[in-house]
């Protein structure tokens, strides 16, 4: 079956063709490549190489699967404030299936997924946002098919899988205690395909497009860390690159959200900032087209790109503070005192028993 959509797609098989057809200038494209290259800490000359490689790259077919998610990841990608930058994602790839963005619905939508899988077997990318429920297949279905079945079927002939967002990467909110749906991460279910985790709630748009750009330009997935995240974007903590870090080093902390320290822009560590344990590029790449990021807006990092961050205690408790030293100390003192008293009683009873059991020796005993 050939339709106008397919015709158009084949006519712009490479990224360069597609950009030209859409009237995107080379300047805008180079700007995009330079920003991606700097974000990934590639050498200065890499932007040009990236641009050349990208322009020649064939646009890969991408199937986007949405499971137990909130569409925040798609929002992050689609509602980026700088259309000349993030919208390029749709020119880099051929997005053949995506609930929120595709025009087709019902059977036509599912047919698009089937067609993309058949035409590009072994070559297409699968992007997943949302976790998969194992508790009951009926908790989340698409066209009446359980998430786990859609995932297995679509992943079978995929070149690679991008688990976008903390839900797909680590289970996220659906997997937070008590995890009523038995939600699991994509990497728990798919073991035989390369998986890149791009966590965040949502992830930074540039990071999502950056991973795809890297895959297109260099023909391989970027280097990953122990949690399956691209090192280029998740190699450093927010804390290490935070512009408020000098205040931390000087011991200058905001104690409340409206005290003098907060007005002076001091470190938010004591207000629960999870920057020291959150690996992400927010402090450098920033949000809303590089305008700001949470800490810059006066709120501590909640560590949304870390596994199980929902269950890691209050968002507003400082990381290093002993949970409750006074209460704990009182409890320990009470337990210690109780133990001491108990042992004392035991010792005294032993002494009393020894005294009672003591037999005196008389002169008569010795002369026996």
């Amino acid at each position: 079956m050939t339709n106008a959509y397919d015709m158009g797609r084949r006519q712009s098989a490479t990224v360069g063709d597609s950009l030209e057809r859409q009237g995107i200038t080379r300047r805008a494209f180079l700007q995009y490549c330079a920003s991606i290259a700097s974000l990934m800490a590639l050498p200065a000359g890499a932007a040009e190489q990236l641009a050349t490689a990208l322009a020649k790259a064939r646009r890969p077919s991408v199937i986007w699967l949405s499971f137990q998610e909130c569409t925040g990841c798609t929002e992050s990608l689609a509602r980026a404030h700088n259309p000349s930058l993030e919208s390029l994602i749709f020119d880099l790839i051929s997005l053949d299936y995506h609930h929120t963005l595709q025009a087709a619905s019902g059977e036509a939508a599912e047919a698009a997924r089937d067609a993309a899988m058949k035409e590009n077997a072994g070559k297409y990318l699968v992007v997943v946002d949302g976790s998969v429920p194992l508790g009951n297949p009926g908790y989340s279905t698409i066209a009446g098919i359980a998430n786990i079945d859609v995932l297995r079927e679509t992943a079978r002939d995929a070149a690679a899988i991008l688990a976008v967002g903390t839900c797909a990467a680590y289970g996220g909110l659906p997997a937070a205690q008590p995890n009523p749906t038995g939600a699991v991460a994509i990497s728990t279910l798919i073991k035989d395909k390369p998986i890149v985790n791009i966590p965040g709630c949502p992830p930074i748009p540039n990071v999502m497009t950056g991973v795809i750009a890297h895959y297109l330009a260099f023909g391989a997935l970027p280097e990953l860390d122990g949690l399956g995240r691209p090192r280029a974007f998740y190699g450093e903590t927010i804390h290490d690159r935070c512009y408020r870090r000098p205040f931390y080093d000087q011991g200058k902390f905001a104690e409340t959200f409206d005290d003098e320290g907060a007005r002076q822009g001091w470190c938010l560590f004591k207000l629960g900032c999870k920057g020291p344990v959150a690996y992400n590029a927010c402090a450098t790449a920033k949000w809303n087209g590089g305008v700001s990021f949470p800490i810059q807006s006066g709120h501590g990092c909640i560590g949304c790109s870390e596994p199980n961050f929902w269950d890691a205690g209050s968002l507003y408790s400082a990381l290093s503070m002993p949970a409750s030293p006074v209460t704990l100390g009182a409890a320990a003192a009470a337990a210690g005192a109780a133990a001491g008293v108990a042992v004392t009683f035991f010792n005294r009873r032993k002494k009393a028993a020894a005294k009672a059991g003591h037999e005196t020796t008389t002169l008569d005993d010795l002369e026996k």
Partner: protein
Amino acid sequence: MDQLQFLTWVRGPGLNLALLVFVLGVLWRLIEIYGLGRKTDLSAPRHVPGASGWATIARRSLPAPGLLKSSPVTYIGGYIFHVGLAVVVFLFAPHVALVDALVGVTWPALPSQVIDFATVVTMVAMVAVLVDRHVKWAKRFLSTFGDWFAWLLTFLPLLTGWLAVQHLLLPYTLMLALHILSVELLLVCLPFTKLFHAFTSFGSRWFNGTMNGHKGVPV
């Protein structure tokens, strides 16, 4: 677990746990020891000058006649490292700040350079008493595992703390985490090793002095 997560753990749950064991252990052992009790001495007390609990506490803080000459390393090294340890632990500004953050009590601190000097001197004194313990056959004969272990428990916080402040050997984050961990190890072990003398030595001296003072013997 990376360096920062390690540091976060030792500063948070690790410190909680160590303090918990420390407080529990200290109270347990103090009550147990003093709860043993002593028989009442029914004899009439003899009053001899210098024969009392307080006098014994003071007297035993000084070397007995002749012993300073025969074991100079034990005495001089011992004085230096005990005083040095107290200075480093209680008068280093970050330590004062920690206590302030935890319980809201604060006092003046010494300049970092003075603390740095005191740390080095304390470590040298500790190494000297260790070597002396190893070299003198009688001391070595009397030493058990507990003695060597207690030395290590005391030395590690000094060494790691000094290395962290000087930014030597390992990255600061990791060294600081190791320093705090070594202190936690010390806190956990203190109530159950001979390091418990920090709490009992003056009490037992007072007990000895009082009992012997009752008999008219200045010890």
